[in-house]
């Protein structure tokens, strides 16, 4: 884990954060606008104003980047952190090619620019000026530029925020691919719950300059109200691809029990996370014999909780993992849902987000 701690007086509030992030995968800093997320990123990258900085400690791969006790604050150009900003910040007087080679040359990077150019599909843009390409393309170029500097940590500050819906949908798979292939940790700022659920491995929830919660996404999306309110409750099942059923375009995933999802481009033994919304799951006492719903898995009821919308949130164990089901009070009475009861959870294979 990478430990990060900053205390600084900002214009309108005190930023006082202490959190850890895993050495791999995407850590999302999640919180409302103006909660201090970008300030944390700027401090990490060394580009923040150090005035009024009361405490700072940040180490990466045994290198001290910030240590206020010993008055160490490494200059940003020595930190080896790549930063993709919300507003691409490409250099407009340089071509796309010169832009992506800017950090590459200065860091004596060992990477092959051709690989990243191909992955991010920017071959055709290389000779153009950044002012001639679209918003989504700019962000892809900015990502290649950042990655080519061979960073030890990648910072993404709401890279999708300035894009329209369609460009967002186009860029998301690139970020998911990054997550799969990149060995370095990624810190990703977002206030969009959908992005968080789709991309995060680890979440740090920030509000008014404080860390109010942190943990694995699978745990946090069960317990953290900020994550369950906007989109309604949801849960994540972790598993491994067990079988690929080509003719039905289905994949069987072992998450303690076997579940089926509709998915393409999966590989055997691949580790996956499956996001399921609680509203898409139903409970029954006996497995129906003639249902179109493919997944009907035995679960054991754990607890019942009142939801904001006058429904009941039922937590149940599926193997070792916890699922959440949203049901009405009437259903709870009819089926006598109570702690310890064995039931069947039904959910459609298509109700699963990759």
């Amino acid at each position, binding site marked *: 884990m990478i430990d990060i701690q900053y205390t600084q007086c900002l214009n309108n509030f005190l930023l006082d954060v202490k959190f850890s992030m895993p050495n791999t995968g995407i850590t999302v800093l999640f919180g409302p606008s103006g909660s201090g997320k970008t300030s944390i990123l700027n401090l990490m*990258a060394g580009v923040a104003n150090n005035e009024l900085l009361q405490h700072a400690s940040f180490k990466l791969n045994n290198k001290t980047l910030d240590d206020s006790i010993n008055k160490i604050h490494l200059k940003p150009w020595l930190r080896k*952190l790549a*930063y993709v900003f919300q507003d691409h910040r490409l*250099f407009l007087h340089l071509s796309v090619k010169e832009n992506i080679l800017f950090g590459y040359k200065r860091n004596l990077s060992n990477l092959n620019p051709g690989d990243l150019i191909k992955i991010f599909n920017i071959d055709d843009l290389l000779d153009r000026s950044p*002012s001639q390409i679209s918003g989504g393309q700019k962000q892809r170029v900015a990502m290649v*530029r950042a990655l080519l500097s061979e960073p030890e940590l990648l910072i993404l500050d709401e890279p999708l925020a300035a894009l329209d819906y369609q460009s967002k949908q186009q860029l998301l798979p690139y970020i998911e691919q990054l997550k799969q292939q990149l060995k370095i940790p990624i810190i990703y700022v977002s206030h969009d719950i959908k992005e968080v659920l789709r991309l995060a491995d680890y979440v740090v929830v920030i509000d008014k300059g404080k860390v109010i919660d942190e943990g694995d996404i699978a745990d946090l999306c069960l317990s953290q109200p900020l994550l369950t309110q906007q989109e309604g409750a949801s849960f994540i099942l972790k598993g491994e691809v067990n079988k690929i059923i080509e003719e039905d375009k289905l994949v069987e995933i072992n998450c303690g029990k076997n579940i089926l999802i509709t998915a393409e481009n999966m590989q055997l033994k691949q580790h996956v996370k499956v996001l399921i919304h609680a509203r898409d799951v139903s409970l029954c006492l006996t497995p129906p014999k003639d249902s179109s719903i493919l997944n009907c898995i035995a679960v054991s009821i754990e607890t019942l909780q009142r939801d904001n919308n006058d429904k009941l949130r039922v937590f149940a164990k599926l193997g070792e993992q916890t699922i959440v089901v949203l049901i009405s009070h009437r259903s709870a009475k009819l089926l006598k849902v109570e702690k310890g009861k064995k039931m069947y959870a039904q959910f459609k294979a298509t109700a699963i987000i990759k």
Partner: protein
Amino acid sequence: MIDIAPILVTLKLATITTLILLIIGTPMAWWLSNTRSRFKVVIESVVALPLVLPPTVLGFYLLLALSPNGMVGSFWSMISSTPLSFSFTGLVIGSVIYSMPFVVQPLQASFEMVGKPIQQAAYTLGATPFDTFKNIVLPLSRRGFLVAITLGFAHTVGEFGVVLMIGGNIPEVTQVLSIVIYDHVEVLEYTQAHYYSIGLLLFSFFVLLVTYTYNRKLMVRFS
């Protein structure tokens, strides 16, 4: 006949003044655009003084300072045998001060327009501040430099009051175009005054025309 000497003196003065102003004005504008020092406003006001001060006031104090008994003048006579007042060097010093805001202000504005965010991006990619200044800020400030050079040069060419006070009107040394025109008008030689005046008018118009045309091209490129 037209005397070519004042034209040469004027061009020489404007060229040297502009070069010196670029050398000292660039770091000054850079500092002004980045600092949060409370002295910033003081320096900004001092730089802008020639914009509002009558040239005679500036010329008067320069005359005092440059004279052999003045602060600058006495120091100059220590390191050099020639006096500073009524010399070409004295004229250059006066012009540098007088034209300073015309170079520093456009540069400062263009540095500020490039902005911190783009510099931060360069830092995170491994560029040092000097590297960033040379390869990012300078090229992005081309328009500012174009405006600064044009205004600095043209303003020095058009200088009158300060030159009159400290120049001494010595032919081939400190006699510049604007003074020659004044002299001709004073003795009612309107024909000669016309030659120089029309020349200056066309020159100024031409310089501005080229600048604005080129400026527009740059603007199109960066937009």
